[in-house]
């Protein structure tokens, strides 16, 4: 085996320029494939991370302005969402609607004895933690008891801890008091996040601060068991119908309430990602293929040039199979050697991109896993063998008498 390899490298070495030019095409093909696959993976990763952190099974609803007259009302009427609407939405479809919640924002400073921040707060339901995918660095999130008792409790983001409590760890912050809106609050939890600075309090408490008005700025409907785009759209229409009945606007009036169906959007994005992925593979594989065809061509040329040599080898006792193996192995050697260089360069570039885009939302972890590299190696060997097969069959047609013929 090592003998055969030595034999092959000896022949490849005689044609350094040709070998390396051909090899370059293969290396470039593999390099493109790995880079494209890595980039695509990065984009898909960041898409998946975003949907995972924000949830893809929600419909957000905001109040709007009617654009059509209805039941004696004129167009241009403001629609106002109220807390009562949330219960009505819950009743709309008990099977498919698993949770209805809302949030309110409030401004103002949050301060400790020495430090303060003017980030404001957000009054939320306990389910907000699930939707946002928050992990707790310490303590807990808002819970139902907080909601029922309208407790003055607060959940901070990790980023807020060094601002408000410069010498404390998240765990040490639990139970500390802060001031907001002239009231004293207890910190009950710190969530992990590298960038969010939102401060959360119970929705009920926030409403109380807002003077117990039942007007709300938005509603989030969480759905379950919705699998197809049409189911998602149907549910969205049901929600509109419920609100239309409650607020007396035409159910088809698109501007009366605004909705954002993350599920149908997710499906569209997902199919977009699928297309992107396929496109990248096709481009990559064709680039690689052109490299392989180049190798095959070069092997044809090489076999033709070496007709006399092959004749000599046949005359002194090379079996047809040895010739076949040698040509195929030469082709495999070129493709895998240079393919390997391409893999290394591709991995190097994706690694570099991973560093550059570290922490960005656009591309997340474009590194290709080692299993892909191994698969590609296997593909290279097979492709190299195929590229060499036809030239090798040509080589077999060389009869041993060729050796005796004078050039």
């Amino acid at each position, binding site marked *: 085996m090592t003998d055969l390899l030595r034999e092959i490298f000896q022949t490849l070495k005689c044609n350094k320029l040709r070998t390396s030019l051909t090899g370059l095409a293969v290396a470039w093909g593999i390099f493109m494939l790995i880079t494209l696959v890595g980039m695509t993976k990065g984009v898909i990763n960041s898409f998946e991370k975003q949907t995972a952190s924000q949830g893809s099974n929600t419909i957000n609803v905001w109040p709007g302005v009617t654009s059509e007259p209805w039941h004696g009302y004129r167009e241009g009427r403001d629609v106002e969402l109220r807390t009562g609407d949330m219960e009505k939405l819950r009743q709309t479809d008990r099977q498919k609607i698993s949770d209805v919640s809302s949030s309110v924002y409030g401004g103002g400073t949050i301060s400790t004895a020495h430090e303060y921040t003017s980030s404001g707060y957000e009054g939320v339901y306990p389910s907000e933690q699930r939707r946002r995918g928050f992990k707790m660095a310490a303590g807990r999130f808002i819970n139902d008891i907080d909601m029922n008792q309208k407790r003055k409790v607060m959940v901070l983001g990790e980023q807020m801890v060094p601002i408000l409590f410069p010498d404390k760890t998240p765990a040490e912050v639990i139970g500390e008091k802060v001031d907001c809106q002239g009231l004293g609050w207890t910190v009950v939890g710190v969530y992990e996040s590298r960038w969010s600075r939102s401060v959360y309090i119970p929705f009920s408490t926030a409403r109380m601060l807002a003077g117990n008005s039942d007007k709300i700025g938005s509603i989030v409907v969480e759905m379950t068991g919705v699998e197809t785009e049409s189911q998602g759209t149907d549910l969205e229409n049901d929600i509109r119908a419920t609100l239309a009945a409650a607020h007396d606007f035409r159910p088809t009036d698109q501007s009366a309430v605004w909705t954002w169906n993350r599920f149908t959007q997710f499906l569209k994005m997902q199919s977009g990602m699928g297309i992107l992925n396929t496109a990248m593979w096709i481009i990559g594989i064709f680039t690689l293929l052109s490299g392989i065809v180049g190798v095959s061509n070069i092997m044809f040329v090489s076999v033709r040039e070496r007709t006399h040599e092959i004749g000599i080898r046949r*005359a002194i*006792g090379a079996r047809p199979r040895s010739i076949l193996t040698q040509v195929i192995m030469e082709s495999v050697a070129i493709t895998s050697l240079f393919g390997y260089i391409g893999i290394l360069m591709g991995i190097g570039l994706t690694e570099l991109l991973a560093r550059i885009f570290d922490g960005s939302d656009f591309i997340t972890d474009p590194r290709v896993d080692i299993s892909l590299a191994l698969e590609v190696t296997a593909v290279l060997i097979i492709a190299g063998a195929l590229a060499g097969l036809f030239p090798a069959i040509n080589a077999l047609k060389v009869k041993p008498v060729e050796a005796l013929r004078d050039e």
Partner: protein
Amino acid sequence: MITLKDINKTYPGAAPLHVLKDISLNIGRGELVSIMGASGSGKSTLLNILGILDGYDSGEYWLDGKLIKNLSENRAADLRNRMIGFVFQSFNLISYKDAADNVALPLFYQGVGRRKRRALAMEQLEKLGLADRAHHLPGELSGGQKQRVAIARSLITRPSIILADEPTGALDSRTSKEVMQIFRDLNSQQGMTIAIVTHDPGVGEQTNRIIRISDGRIV
């Protein structure tokens, strides 16, 4: 060693050419013979058949007691490798392999390990006085040296017979004599059977027997 019975060979084509006509011939073990004849008389064709490089249409060819007829490519390759040593007019060395590797190449196809191959090749080159040229490429050798490397290559598998097609055709008279001397020594000292195709009457004279061929027939 070699027995031919009524061998016929026609090159097919638009105008088929009947090159060998009822050739019958005996070459005994340990003989040194030359085959002579005009250009185009069929000498090389005959030698190709003897070397199992080419087939024939009718008749029988016995080599060392084996009937050589309708062999598979593999069988023919093995017989060439083990029983026949070739020496060509144009040397037919592989240009990117050094002398020792060229000499060792037939052993590669027998599956002999590299180290043993090199050792045997060195031994063979030494016998032919080329030990100091073992690591030179063919391009760095003179014609006579190249032909000696080719002879070393033909001997490395200890074949039953050496077939040489115009081995001195590309050499000057002095190196021709040297090469012929090698053949004579191999024949007289080791009892090697040798058949040499040649144009040169001087070469023919140095063999035990001259087989003359004219227009595809032995005369």
